[in-house]
C-alpha cells in the first residue's frame, strides 16, 4: 500500500528529481524535452487500462475505452514526435556530408 506519509515522500522526491533534471538544460533542447516529458506522462495509458479492465456498467466501459484510446495516443504520438526531433540533432563531427 502506498499510503499516508509514504505517498507524500514519493511525491516530494519525484518532484525534486523532475526539477533537477530540467535545471541546467540549454534552451536548444526545450522543445524536444517538453515533447519528451509529454511522452512520459503517456504512462497514463497503464492507469486507463486498469480502469477499463475493472469497468462494469456501459457508461464506465465507454469512458474507459475512450481513456485507453486517449492514453495510447498520448504515449505513441509523444514517442514518435520526440524521436523524430531528437534524431536530427547531430554534431558536425558525426556528419560526413
Amino acid at each position: 500500500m502506498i499510503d499516508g506519509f509514504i505517498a507524500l515522500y514519493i511525491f516530494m522526491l519525484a518532484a525534486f528529481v523532475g526539477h533537477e533534471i530540467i535545471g541546467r538544460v540549454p534552451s536548444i533542447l526545450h522543445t524536444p524535452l517538453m515533447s519528451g516529458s509529454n511522452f512520459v506522462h503517456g504512462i497514463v495509458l497503464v492507469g486507463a487500462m486498469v480502469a477499463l479492465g475493472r469497468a462494469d456498467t456501459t457508461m464506465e466501459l465507454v469512458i474507459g475505452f475512450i481513456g485507453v484510446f486517449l492514453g495510447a495516443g498520448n504515449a505513441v504520438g509523444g514517442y514518435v514526435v520526440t524521436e523524430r526531433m531528437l534524431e536530427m540533432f547531430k554534431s558536425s563531427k558525426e556528419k560526413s556530408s
Partner: protein
Amino acid sequence: MSEFVSMRSVIEASYFIAAILFIFGLKRMSSPVTARGGIIWAGAGMVVATLVTFLYPGMGNYALMMVAIFIGGVLAWVSGKKVAMTDMPQMIALYNGMGGGAAAAIAAVELLGGEDHGLVFGTLAVLGGMIGAVSFSGSLIAFAKLQGLMRSTFRFGGQQLLNILLLAATVGLAGIIVFQHGDINLIVVFFLLALILGVTMTLPIGGADMPVVISLYNALTGLAVAFEGFVLQNAAMIIAGTVVGAAGTLLTQLMATAMNRSLANVLFSRFGDEVGEASDIAGSMKPIEAPDVGVMMAFADKVLIVPGYGMAVAQAQHKVWELAQLLISRGVDVKFAIHPVAGRMPGHMNVLLAEAGVPYDIIYDQDEINAEFATADVALVIGANDVVNPAARTDPASPIYGMPILNADHAKNVIVIKRGQGVGFSGIENALFFLDQTRMLYGDGQAMASQLIQEVKSI
C-alpha cells in the same frame, strides 16, 4: 494466493524498472549528445509498463482494451510521422490533451464506481479528474489556434469574472463529489464544467503565448496522472506524473522568462493592451541587391546568421544551410545565433535547423553569441524581427521593452531579408531596419537564399 502475491511482485518490479528508465531517459534527453538515446530508454520503460499491466489481477474487457490501444496507437503513429517540423508545437499540444483526457477518464470511471477512496485519495481522484479535463479541452483549443483552425481570440468584458465563477463552481462541486459517492448526475455536470473551464481559460490567450500555455498544460497533465496514480496505487504513474509535473512547471517558467513575461502575465493579461505610443524612428530603410550581399559575405571574416520563424515558413532553412556551407568552405567563420523564442517555442528553431542538417555545435544561444556581434562583419537576419529590435533595450515606451534581444545592431553590417516593408508578428516597428549599417534585401526567404548561393558561387 501465493501465485497472486508473486504476480503482484512481478508487476511492481516492472513498474519500478519503468520508473527508473523514465528518469534516466529524461536525464539523457537534457543533453544534445545523449538525447537520442534518452527517448529510446523512456520508450522501453513504456513498453515494459504497458505489457505487464495486462497481467494485472481482477481485470476483464481485454478485447476492448486491445482495440482501443490499436486505434489510438495507429492514429497517433501515422499523424506523428506525417506532421511537418514547423507544426510540431500544436502536435505536442494534441498528444498532451489526449493524456489529460485519459487521466480525466480514469477519474470518471473511479468516481462512477462509487467506491469510497477515503478523504485524501477521494480528493486526489476528483482533483486529478478536474485538472485532466481542463488540460484536455484547453490543449485542444491550443491545437486549434496554432493549426489555424481558429483564428480570432475571443475576448469580452467580465471574462476573468466568468472564469473565476466557473472555477469556483467546479471546485465546489468537486468538494460535494468527494463526500457523495457515485452520484452520476453530479459527476457528469462536474466534468462538463471542468471541460468548459479549459476552453474559456484558453480562448483569450494569443497565439504568440500559446507555447507557454502548452507547456503549462503539459505540467498539469503530469500532475493529474500522478493524482490518479495515487488513487490506483500505481507507483509508475505517481513517479512519472510527478516528475513531469515538476519538470514541466520549471520548463514553463523558463519559457515565460525567455519571452520576458511572467506566467500570470501570460494567463491573465492581454499582450499589447497597454501599448504606449512607441517613439518615432528616425532614418529610412535602405534597400540592397543580392549581388552586393553575396560579395559582402564572401569576403567577410565572420558572418552571424539570425534565423526567425519567417525563415521556416518560407522553407528556407535548407538553402540557408547550403549558403552557410559555401561560406565556410571559403574560410568564413559562420555561426547561427538563436534567440530563445525564435520559432514558435524555445528550442523550436534548433529543431528546424537540425532538420536542415545544421550541426548543433555551430548553433549558439543568445548568451553565448551576443558578445560576438561586435566582431562580426555581417549579421544576416532572415525571417526574424522582434528578437533583434534594439528598441527593447532603449525605448521604454515599446511593448517589448526589457525583452532580452540578440545584438544584431552591434555588427558592422546588417542584412535583413524580408518580404516587404510591413511590421512583424507583434505589429511593432523595428528600429534595427532604420540603422545606418542596415540594408534591406526584399524578397522571399528561400528565393533570396538561392540567389545568394549563386552570387557567392560566381565569385
